[in-house]
């Protein structure tokens, strides 16, 4: 039945995806690696030469590099803290019986569907603007001095915007996981006199552990690469205050035209992302076995 013929048909059906992804994965990456060992500036493309590890050394000794790594980590950790903790609380809230539950859910998940440039510009202009923004209006009506968000707390502002975009994702996934919790178990725990905290600590949280892991890992992959939000709000500044690794590479490549340097940065970014990826693959892979 499952003959050689079906076998080879199956291979044939699989081939286009595999070949395309193989090319997509290998060709640009190999080129990045190659350029990273070259002196190559688009402003002077004729002067190309082998650079050895110069680009890496240059990138590594650039003070902006460490600042950008620190900023990258601050964005990832900050957003994860806000979205995971906020997501758990929101999921617990939305899991309760509520009038108009469907609409509440829709309102809560909506920010996730807003494209990053729109999200960032809404926050920058309409919410956080020191003169005309909603937060400034609120501050003034309370008799407080309005905060100039992007000047005083540039990195925090980015974290807030990105958190707003990802909180719905965390909430939605944790809520989905929460709803698969056995109702009978919850009741049994309640009958046994476990209070809310104990039920949460010993029943809900262990049940959510897997979903939390997935949220953290998937978000980390996207958060390492935050780009558009920075581009349209602070453009990496003031100074390098909001430049993350992704943005620094973009600056090096397309604003300084330094192909070699940007490629070295790219290699570093790939290595960093892969460390995270290994953990994610394990978590997902385990699920495949089931």
């Amino acid at each position, binding site marked *: 039945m499952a003959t050689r013929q079906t*076998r080879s048909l199956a291979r044939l059906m*699989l081939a*286009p995806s595999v070949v395309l992804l193989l090319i997509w994965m290998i060709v*640009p990456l190999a080129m990045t690696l190659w350029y990273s060992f070259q002196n190559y500036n688009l402003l002077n493309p004729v002067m190309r030469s082998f650079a050895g590890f110069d680009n890496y050394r240059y990138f590594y000794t650039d003070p902006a590099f460490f600042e950008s790594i620190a900023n990258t980590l601050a964005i990832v950790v900050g957003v994860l803290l806000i979205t995971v903790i906020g997501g758990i609380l929101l999921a617990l809230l939305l899991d309760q019986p*509520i009038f108009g539950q469907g609409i*509440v859910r829709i309102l809560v998940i909506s920010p996730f*569907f807003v494209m*990053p440039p729109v999200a960032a510009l809404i926050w920058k202009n309409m919410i956080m603007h020191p003169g005309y923004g909603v937060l400034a209006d609120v501050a003034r009506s309370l008799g407080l001095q309005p905060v100039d968000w992007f000047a005083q707390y540039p990195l925090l502002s980015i974290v807030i915007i990105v958190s707003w975009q990802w909180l719905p994702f965390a909430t939605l996934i944790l809520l989905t996981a929460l709803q698969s919790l056995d109702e009978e178990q919850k009741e049994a725990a309640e009958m046994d006199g476990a209070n809310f905290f104990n039920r949460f600590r010993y029943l809900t949280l262990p049940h959510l552990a897997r979903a939390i892991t997935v949220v953290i890992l998937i978000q980390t992959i996207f958060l390492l690469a935050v780009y558009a939000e920075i581009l349209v709000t602070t453009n990496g500044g003031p100074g390098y205050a909001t430049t993350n690794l992704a943005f620094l590479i973009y600056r090096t490549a397309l604003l300084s035209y330094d192909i070699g340097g940007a490629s070295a940065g790219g290699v570093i970014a790939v290595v960093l992302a892969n460390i995270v990826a290994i953990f994610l693959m394990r978590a*997902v892979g385990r699920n495949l076995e089931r």
Partner: protein
Amino acid sequence: MARAISTRRKTVTTVVAWLVALIIFFPILYTIITSFKTEPEAIAGISLIPSGTFENYIEVQAQRDYFRPFLNSVVISLGSTLIALLISVPAAWSMAFSPARRTKDILMWMLSTKMMPAVGVLVPMYLIFRDTGLLDTRTGLTIVLTLVNLPIVVWMLYTYFREIPGEILEAARMDGASTLKEIVYVLTPMAVPGIASTMLLNIILAWNESFWTIRLSAANAAPLTAFIASFSSPQGLFWAKLSAASTLAIAPILIMGWFSQKQLVRGLTFGAVK
């Protein structure tokens, strides 16, 4: 036995939940409201009641040729989704119905390509696009978005196809159906819902993709992401128009998103959370 829930408790939870939900939704709501204000109104302090002008929508089209990036977004996101589906359906199909020893490894490897940060290959992609004339073309962006989303599409389809019982196939074979007939009459009807969900999620992802679309496009092929990003420089006095452009840019996806909540969880967690 259902737990008895007092109406009072439900009312309190309802109020809290609505309050939180409205705060989270507020920036979007305020954008929609602002899009119906005049420019002086837009910066005149909080007000939730606009004068109701449609001027901004007309202006956005007249001054900035809004329809062009909109059309680019539609072409690029639909195009890349359809191509990705054409490539992925056979692949997911073969892995779900004739799994080989290596199937799991292939799936994991495909997923791993998704982990590659875009900036890691920005330089070569930019140079390749520049040298092949794909820079700032809809074709170029469609190709990139197809490749970027291909792993997710294969994975999502795979998790749907895997749920189709294999016995149905066996039964059809017993009845003497050929492979082609098997696919057309037996499996396709069962697979359509999964394909539709995958398509929906992928259109959303492609529509909102904001790295490649911004970096590899200029005036000609710029979709809405790049168009809106170009509003970032000037200060003040244009918020109402920005709001109108933003509202139009997010409305179709917002509505699609509301319908695809469940699939979203499944697609974005690669089936790890259902």
